[in-house]
């Protein structure tokens, strides 16, 4: 009996040990504590909280997780950086903020070398746009997404339709699938995010945002056409689509009230397959935007220069971004992995076929420019597109006003390197 209890205890210890395992070598950080700052919500924050417990178990380092919603994350993080606050040791940074944040972040190259992190393992299209500045690395990519369609496979099959290949087809399909009970499409049309939908159409039609010298290059004809296409689509969306944030858009889709939506896949992957939340389990899939790619969303983890626990902070980053964690976060929470291997693993792909619909877009995504003017430039564009869709201004006025403001913005502190985006 004693022997049995002994074996049982050994078994329990072994199991407990394997529950918190890491594929990278972690230092003993007993007695240390770090504060990590993430975006609040149902994706990144829960991942951080879950990993914090495991990291503490493995290293002895206490991890305090602080989270704020996207709307206030930028200003709070940047305020903490420019005031040289030592409050945070790790920041989750959106790639479009890199231009403003990098002067205050620690270069990570020495840590990467020391820990033997293989940067070539990251998706090149993501790595090229996220966390780096030319030759120096300031953040390790932790999550990525590319705007894609989510669509109801059952409804498309019933109607004999395929995912759209052109933006005109998007409207046609939305019209064909709109019934008394179901809307053909749903947008997250709140002012602060609606500009993206116009940009997607405008760029796919051959429009450009800026010239090499950072002067605006908005094309009136293409811009108006893209705007009208987007406005026409509203007819097939729920009446309140212009007031929808991501949660409302997500609910419209997973409650079966919309046949198609343009989304960040990470936000929908897990809830769409959760029978407690979703009415469309097993009846949805992702498809890339027309042209095969869309606007990129990518987050990296960086360390403020003033952090007092840089070693522990980097250990956290290495732990959080390793393959096993990314696999776990994807499977359980839906966070888009940044490592190519996960998108190329046949077994993993067979378990998660929706990944195949996102990877082509991530290989060659459309990035936002990430210079000091980014935040205001994109905010202004979002507000003008919102004003156009709400009927306050014409499409021509929208293009003229964006051009005017961007001219003013980029005339001051013009970046000293050429613009290379679309």
């Amino acid at each position, binding site marked *: 009996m004693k022997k049995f209890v002994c074996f049982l205890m050994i078994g329990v210890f072994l199991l407990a040990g394997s529950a918190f395992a890491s594929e990278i070598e972690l230092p003993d950080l007993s007695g240390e504590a770090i504060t990590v700052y993430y975006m609040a919500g149902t994706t990144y924050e829960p991942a951080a909280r879950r990993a914090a417990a495991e990291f503490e178990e493995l290293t002895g380092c206490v991890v305090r997780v602080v989270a704020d919603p996207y709307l206030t994350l930028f200003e709070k993080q940047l305020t903490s950086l420019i005031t040289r606050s030592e409050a945070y040791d790790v920041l989750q940074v959106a790639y479009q903020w890199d231009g403003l944040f990098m002067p205050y972040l620690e270069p990570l190259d020495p840590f990467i070398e020391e820990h033997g992190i293989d940067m070539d393992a990251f998706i090149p299209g993501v790595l090229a746009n996220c966390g780096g500045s030319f030759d120096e690395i300031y953040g390790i990519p932790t999550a990525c997404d590319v705007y894609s369609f989510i669509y109801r496979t059952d409804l498309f099959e019933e109607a004999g339709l395929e995912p759209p290949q052109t933006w005109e087809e998007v409207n046609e399909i939305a019209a064909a699938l709109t019934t008394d009970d179901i809307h053909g499409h749903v947008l997250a049309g709140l002012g602060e995010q609606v500009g993206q939908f116009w940009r997607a159409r405008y760029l796919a039609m051959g429009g450009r945002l800026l010239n090499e010298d950072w002067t605006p290059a908005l094309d009136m004809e293409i811009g108006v056409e893209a705007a009208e296409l987007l406005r026409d689509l509203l007819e097939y969306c729920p009446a309140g689509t212009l007031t929808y944030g991501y949660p409302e858009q997500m609910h419209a889709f997973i409650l079966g009230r919309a046949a198609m939506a343009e989304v960040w896949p990470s936000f929908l992957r897990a809830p769409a397959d959760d029978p407690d939340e979703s009415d469309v389990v097993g009846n949805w899939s992702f498809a890339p935007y027309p042209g095969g790619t869309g606007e990129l969303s990518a987050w990296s983890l960086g360390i403020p220069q003033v952090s007092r626990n840089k070693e522990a902070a980097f250990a956290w980053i290495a732990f959080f971004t390793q393959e096993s964690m990314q696999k776990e976060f994807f499977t359980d929470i839906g966070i888009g992995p940044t490592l190519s291997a996960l998108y190329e693993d046949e077994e993993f792909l067979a378990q998660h076929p929706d990944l195949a619909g996102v990877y082509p877009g991530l290989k060659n995504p459309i990035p936002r420019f990430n210079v000091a003017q980014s935040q205001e430039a994109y905010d202004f564009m979002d*507000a003008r597109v919102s004003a156009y869709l709400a009927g306050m201004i014409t499409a021509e006025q929208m293009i003229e006003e964006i051009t005017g403001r961007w001219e003013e913005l980029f005339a001051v502190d013009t970046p000293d390197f050429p613009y290379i985006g679309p």
Partner: protein
Amino acid sequence: MAKKQFQDFKIGWLFVLPALAFLSITSLIPLAYSLGVSFTNFNLLRPDRPLQFVGFQNYLTGIRDTEFTTAAWNTILIIGGSLALQFLIGLMLSLILSQERKGFRVWRTVLLIPNIVAPVVVGVLWRLMLNPDYGIVKLGLAELGLDLPWLAHPIWSRVAVVMVETWSWTPFVMLTLIAGLKSLSDTPFEAARIDGAGGFQIFRYITLPMIKPVLAVTFLLRLMDAFKMFDTIYVLTYGGPGLATEVLSLRIYKRGLKYFDITTASAQSWIFLACIFIVSYIIAKKFINVESRLE
């Protein structure tokens, strides 16, 4: 005697000094700092750059900012609409509820609830109630034939903000006017009744002139507070759609803390402050005149 007066003077200053120091540190120094910054080229993101005096350049940039002028018009429209409704409804309620009848005391308390709720909660509450899919107010009004895109249309979103502000602040107006009405002497009313004056005549020629000072003070307080409106709009519409409900405080916040353009934001804050001061001064002056006329 003179020595005693001097002693009292010194003790008086001793009592006042801590409050004065506290106010100076927390209010005056930041105010002076922002005033100073508004005349320079200070860049929060590049503090290493040499600081230069730029005169009124930031003020000109601030005034030429079309979003700032749009926000100014929105502020006037929203404040004008909501204050008019608050005073109209508040006055009517106060005339009814200032009477001592059974149950009125409970009503006064119940009607005060919207004013107790924090502005952020008010924003969240109304955002849910006006939700186009399941919002109780939106669906209720749709049943009555008012199926409107409350938060998605430039005009209706302004109406929604006015409606929410009115809901939230009418109780305050009602309460102060009830206090004003209750402080009035009965004598002129009794005399008017004996002279055969009707209800409207009493209201028009006795009640209204007598509560004018209370109305003016309440209006001044509400006006100054309304200019600071931020939280509710931030949550309810975030200034959208487009810039339809963007008010000055929200615009200045975005310029300062979202785009980190501290110099223009400071200049715009001072322009805003000057406007509030001028409007308040005119109303206060008018109020003083009213008071002297009554005297």
